[in-house]
């Protein structure tokens, strides 16, 4: 599926200061039974967001009205565990466009990038400060600029840069996806297969 172009934006952020958030927490297995890619946002963080039954857990950040925005700020090693791409779909479908953490699991990072969700990896110290900023002022805004690969805490003025593979950056900025590119290589792949024999 072609992805949305990534455009520079400003937004407040939602804090999730938990480490090792695995994809089973992001979207539990029992919600993976769809055969289409839609509506996963409803079950994002399902078992943290709701108490048994369907009563929202008032203590979970997504249910706290003071937090909002398109940026999720999470503890280190975000997205570990299962390869389910549904995790990236759920986060995107809920309305997030960026996840900030001090460390991401590999498969999650790939899945996020393949869906136009930008993982921004910052230093542990910068992350700690982000949590402090949001705690002090839930309306604090942040700016995400992919072109310049920068993330700015507008409250403190502190800017940090982040890594992204040059190819992936181009895809995100232009809304390209890998399959369009790969199918142009079919002849090359066929020749490669010949050489394997």
């Amino acid at each position, binding site marked *: 599926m072609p992805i949305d172009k990534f455009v520079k934006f400003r937004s407040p952020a939602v804090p999730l200061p938990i480490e090792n958030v695995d994809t089973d927490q992001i979207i539990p297995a029992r919600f993976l039974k769809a055969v289409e890619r839609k509506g996963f946002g409803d079950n994002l963080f399902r078992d943290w967001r709701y108490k048994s039954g369907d009563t929202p857990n008032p203590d979970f950040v997504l249910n706290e009205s003071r937090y909002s925005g398109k940026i999720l700020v999470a503890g280190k090693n975000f997205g570990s565990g299962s390869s389910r791409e549904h995790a990236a779909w759920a986060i995107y479908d809920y309305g997030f466009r960026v996840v900030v953490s001090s460390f991401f699991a590999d498969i999650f990072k790939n*899945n996020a990038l393949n869906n136009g969700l930008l993982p921004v990896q910052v230093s542990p110290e910068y992350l700690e400060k982000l949590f402090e900023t949001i705690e002090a002022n839930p309306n604090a805004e942040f700016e995400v600029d992919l072109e310049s690969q920068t993330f700015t805490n507008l409250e403190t003025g502190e800017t940090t840069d982040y890594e992204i593979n040059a190819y992936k950056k181009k895809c995100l900025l232009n809304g390209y996806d890998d399959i369009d590119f790969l199918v142009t290589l079919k002849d090359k792949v066929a020749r490669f*297969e010949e050489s394997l024999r």
Partner: protein
Amino acid sequence: MSSAPKTLFDKIWDAHVVEHVDGGPDVFYIDRHFIHEVTSPVAFGGLERRGLKVFRPEKTVATPDHNVPTEGQELPIQELLSRKQVDTLTANCEKHNIGLYGLNHPFHGIVHVIGPELGITKPGMTIVCGDSHTSTHGAFGSIAFGIGTSEVEMVLASQCILQPKPKKMRINVEGELHKGVTAKDIALYIISKISTSGGTGHFIEYAGSAIRSLSMEGRMTLCNMSIESGARGGMIAPDEVTFEYIKGREFAPKGEEWEKQLAYWKTLKSDDDAVFDLEYTYDAADISPMITYGTNPGMGIGVDGAIPTGEDMGKSDRFTFNKSLEYMGFHPGDKMLGKQVDYVFIGSCTNGRIEDFRTFTDFVKGKKKADNITAWLVPGSHQVEAQIRKEGLVEILEEAGFELRQPGCSACLAMNEDKIPAGKYAVSTSNRNFEGRQGPGARTMLASPIMAAAAAVTGRVTDPREFL
């Protein structure tokens, strides 16, 4: 011709790069693609929207395993959404000419169990599947790793994916394992040392005398758990044990082709002076039977040990640690021995192979299942189930109060009916103890089949060495 020394991983990776994208990933060729009902439908949907065909249907193999019931597989699946996923897989395979081992096929089973047992998995191959435990196949000296659904679509469309080459790590385990210590314990021990993110960005090669001494089943268990350290995958150089295992299997090469491939497989090892980005060495004698006490696979200790106190942890680590113990209903400093157990699960692509059932059966033979235990014994495949019956293990198990279910992923991820109830404790031979992994509120302790057997007959966490 002389060239720079290469690792086993380099040799296979470099031989599969179709093209290098400038400033980007490699166009990486896939020899074998496994698919299942949960992570493939959206990929097929994507293909259709683009009007594309599957590029190399003969290189993809399908089986429904994740959500299938483990009782009454002869009947239509009761749960409607699960049935729809399984039916969708069947329809997609028919439409695109993909080989499918459906629910009642004698070759049906968990995707990472059937690949090796059918001789589809071979040394030197590149293998992917939309499931993170694809790393299992690395036991044969192949590069195997889990991918997301977008990447499943890439493979279907072009037989390639775009991947940056990971870094290389070697983990050596030297010496002899103690009695009662298995491949699962090695895996849990390593993850407890390097943490669940210690392998991130890397591909692991396992080496050393303790690894060489493992059976193929044990090697698969170890490679299977690689992902739990954050690594993309794990692999072991093929040797006589590997060749012996493959020989004669359904899709193994035969005759002249066997000789030809064997000669190639024998070249598959890291050069003596190959350099790894990271290397760890452990002493096999330091490893005890392991059990986890928390909610990630890195939270493991020797069964006779105590849960850490957490006193020396930083603020954010401590928060996560406490949250985890609270979920488990445990306290810092608790001893694991004697902890309550309600459920025992034997199965999954980690420990659902014939050797695991032999080990379990051997342990419970002549003993009785404890009354407080509900035991789910779920073979990894129909072939494993058939072998269990053929070897007469079922009778021994029944005598001891255990019954066998039908193959599937089952309580490993609790997508079907096999859910551990909220608040209950399970000793599980699967791979993940995440919150809610085995059912909402379920509390999982990961361990080997021997530990699970000890818990099943005593009704609590027990050191299996007491019985050996």
